[in-house]
C-alpha cells in the first residue's frame, strides 16, 4: 500500500512529475495519491528521497521453499546449426553470477543434427564459459518451433531444477520464454539490459527499460522458480574463448517428443538477401531517413555501411514510403538497437525513432536542420547536407579501412 506522510510533504510536486500514470496530485500543498491509478512502481518514492514523504509498504509473503532450485542456465539459441551471438553474451554475464552463487553455469542446447552430440556447439559453449551443456539432440528440434521447444525445455527444467534461466531477447527467445514461464507459473522479465545477484536474498536482480526506454525498472522474482529473463542482444559482453576450458556434456534423451506436439508448421523461411547483418547484433548501424528524398538514395546509406562494416537502418517514414523493407526500421514500432555507433542521416529524430536507438554508445547525426531533435541525442552533430557528407564519409572510410 502507498501513503503520504503529510508532515514531511512540502508540496514541491517532484512526485507529480515523476509519475508516469498521473496518479499523484498536489492538493492544498500536500501530495495525494489516487490508489485506483497507482501501480506501486515507486517512482514517486525515489523522487521524494530527500523528504521521504511518500512510503510504499510491501506486504510480506511466506518465503516458499525454493532451495531445491540450484544452477544458472543459459538457453543456447542456435539457428541452422549456428550459435547466436547473444548466447555467448549470456554466458559472459552468467559466468560471474554463477561464481557468486557458487553453482555451475550450464548451457541448454536444443538441436537436431545428423552429427554426434550437437556438432561442435557444446565445445564452443564450454570455451565461452559454460561448465556444463545439457543437450537434447532430436530431429524434431532441428528448426525452432514453439510447442516442441517449450515441451523439451520444460521437461529439462522439471528434471534439473535451475534457479535462473536466461534467454536472448530475440524473435525466438521472446516467443519461447513466455510460453515456458506461463506453463511453470513463474516470473519472466523481458529485454533486460542489466543483471546482478543480490547475495543476501540469493536473487537475480534484473534491470530493464520500460516506456520505450524513458524509464528503467529494477525487478526481482522472490518467490517463484526458476527466475526467468530475456536479455537484450548486444548489451552483455561475451568472454574471450579459452580452448583449454573443459566441461561436462550431458546428453538427454527425450522420448516423449512427438510430431503431434507441434501446433504450428513452418511452410517456408525467406531470408532477405540484402541483409547479412542482423540489426540487433550489429556494432555499427548507418541509418537513413526522409531527408534521403527517394528510395534510390538508400544507395548512399548502403555504400557507407559497406565501407564501414555496418548494417543499414531506416526511419519509419522511409519504410512507410516503401523505400526499404520494414525489418530495417529502427524505432518504437520497429527494432530497438544498441550499437557502438549509430549514424543518423537525414533523420529528424521524432521521439518514436529516438526510443529505438538512444542507448547507442556513439550517435552521429547528419541533418540540414539545426533544430532537428536528433541533435538532442547526438554525440557528434553535423549540420550539413547529407548528400555532401555521406559520400565524403564513404570515401574517407574506404581509403582508410582499405575496403573496396
Amino acid at each position, binding site marked *: 500500500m502507498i501513503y503520504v506522510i503529510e508532515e514531511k510533504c512540502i508540496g514541491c510536486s517532484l512526485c507529480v512529475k515523476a509519475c508516469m500514470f498521473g496518479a499523484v496530485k498536489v492538493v492544498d500543498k500536500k501530495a495525494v495519491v489516487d490508489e485506483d491509478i497507482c501501480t506501486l512502481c515507486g517512482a514517486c518514492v525515489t523522487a521524494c528521497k530527500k523528504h521521504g514523504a511518500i512510503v510504499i509498504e510491501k506486504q510480506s509473503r511466506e518465503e516458499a521453499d525454493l532451495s531445491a532450485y540450484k544452477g544458472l542456465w543459459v538457453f543456447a539459441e542456435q539457428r541452422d546449426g549456428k550459435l547466436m551471438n547473444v548466447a555467448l553474451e549470456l554466458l559472459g554475464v552468467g559466468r560471474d553470477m554463477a561464481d557468486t552463487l557458487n553453482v555451475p553455469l550450464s548451457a541448454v542446447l536444443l538441436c537436431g543434427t545428423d552429427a554426434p552430440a550437437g556438432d561442435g556447439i557444446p565445445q564452443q559453449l564450454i570455451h565461452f564459459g559454460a561448465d556444463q551443456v545439457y543437450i537434447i539432440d532430436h530431429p524434431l528440434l532441428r528448426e525452432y518451433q514453439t510447442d516442441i521447444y517449450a515441451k523439451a525445455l520444460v521437461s529439462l527444467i522439471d528434471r534439473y531444477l535451475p534457479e535462473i534461466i536466461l534467454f536472448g531477447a530475440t524473435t525466438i527467445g521472446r516467443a519461447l520464454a*513466455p510460453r515456458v514461464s506461463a506453463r511453470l507459473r513463474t516470473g519472466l522479465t523481458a529485454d533486460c539490459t542489466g543483471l546482478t545477484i543480490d547475495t543476501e536474498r540469493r536473487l537475480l536482480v534484473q534491470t530493464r527499460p*520500460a516506456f520505450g526506454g524513458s*524509464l528503467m525498472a529494477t525487478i526481482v522474482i522472490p518467490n517463484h522458480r526458476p527466475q526467468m529473463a530475456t536479455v537484450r542482444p548486444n548489451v552483455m559482453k561475451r568472454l574471450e574463448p579459452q580452448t583449454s576450458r573443459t566441461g561436462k556434456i550431458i546428453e538427454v534423451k527425450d522420448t516423449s517428443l512427438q510430431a503431434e506436439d507441434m*501446433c504450428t508448421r513452418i511452410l517456408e523461411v525467406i531470408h532477405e538477401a540484402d*541483409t547479412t547483418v542482423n540489426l540487433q547484433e550489429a556494432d555499427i548501424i548507418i541509418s537513413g531517413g526522409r531527408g534521403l528524398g527517394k528510395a534510390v538514395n538508400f544507395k548512399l546509406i548502403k555504400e557507407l555501411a559497406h565501407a564501414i562494416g555496418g548494417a543499414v537502418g531506416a526511419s519509419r517514414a522511409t519504410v512507410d514510403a516503401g523505400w526499404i523493407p520494414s525489418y530495417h526500421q529502427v524505432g518504437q514500432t520497429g527494432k530497438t538497437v544498441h550499437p557502438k555507433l549509430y549514424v543518423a542521416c537525414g533523420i529528424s529524430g521524432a521521439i518514436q525513432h529516438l526510443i529505438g536507438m538512444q542507448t547507442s554508445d556513439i550517435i552521429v547525426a547528419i541533418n540540414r536542420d539545426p533544430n532537428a531533435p536528433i541533435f538532442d541525442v547526438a554525440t557528434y552533430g553535423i549540420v550539413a547536407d547529407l548528400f555532401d557528407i555521406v559520400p565524403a564519409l564513404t570515401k574517407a572510410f574506404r581509403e582508410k579501412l582499405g575496403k573496396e
Partner: protein
Amino acid sequence: MRIIVSIKQVPDSSEVRFDKETHTMIREGLPSIINPFDENAIEAALQLREEHGGQVIILCMGAPHAEEQLRQAVAMGADQAILLSDRRFALADTLATAYSLSTAIKKIGDYDLLLFGKQAIDGDTAQVGPGVAEMLGLPQITYVRKIQISDSKVIAQRVLEDGYEIVQATLPAVLTVVKEINEPRHASLRGVLKAKKVEISIWKPEDIDADPARIGKNGSPTDVIETFTPEPRGDSQQLSGTPEEIAQALFALLRQQNII
C-alpha cells in the same frame, strides 16, 4: 468468424517532449490511447470480418477510464466490448494479466481467433499474447504481418530479424501483430455515434470465476523494486568544416574510441 482482440490502455508517448537542459524526456500528465500495436490488431480483425463475416469482440483489462479506449475500438467498427476492471485485477504482471485475460476469454466461450498487438508501449514485454496462448492451450504465431484464413486454418507471415517465415496453424489460434500488417482506420462519424451509445460490459473477478490467488498483485511472481530515469546522454559536439574535413575528424574520433 468470432475474433477477440485484446487491447491495452497506455500513456501516449508521442506527446512526450524532450527537456533540452537535462536531455531527458518529460513524462508528466500524458493522455491515454489504445496501444498502437493493438490498433493494428483491431484493424486486422475488422478486415477479416469484412472478408469472412462474423463478430469482433474487444477485451481489455484496465482502470475504469479505459472505457474510453474501448469506445474508440467500437467506433472503429468492433461489435462488442468487455472491460475487466476491479482493484483486484490491478498491479498485475504479465503472468497475472495473461491469467485474467485467458479466464475472461474462456467465459466469452466461442472464438476462432485471438489477436494481440506485439507488445504494449509502456511495459514493452511482448509476453501477454504468448502467455494467454499457453493458458488456453492454443498455437501461437508472433510478429505477424500478414494473415490469411481458409478452411479453419491460418497462414501467417511472421517477421524474423533478417527476413520472414510463412507459418500455418489450425484455428483457434493466438496471433500477435506488428505495425506493418496494416494502417488502422479512423473511426467514422457514424462509428463514433454508435460507440457513444453501446453498452460496455464491465466484468469483475466473480464474473469470470477467477482464482483470487492468480490475479493482480497476488498472482504476480515479478516484483518491481525500483524505477529510475536512465542517465542522460551528455553534451553533443558539433563537427564543422568541409565535408572532407568533417570526414577526417570523424574518422579520427571513432578510431580513438576504438569503434573502427
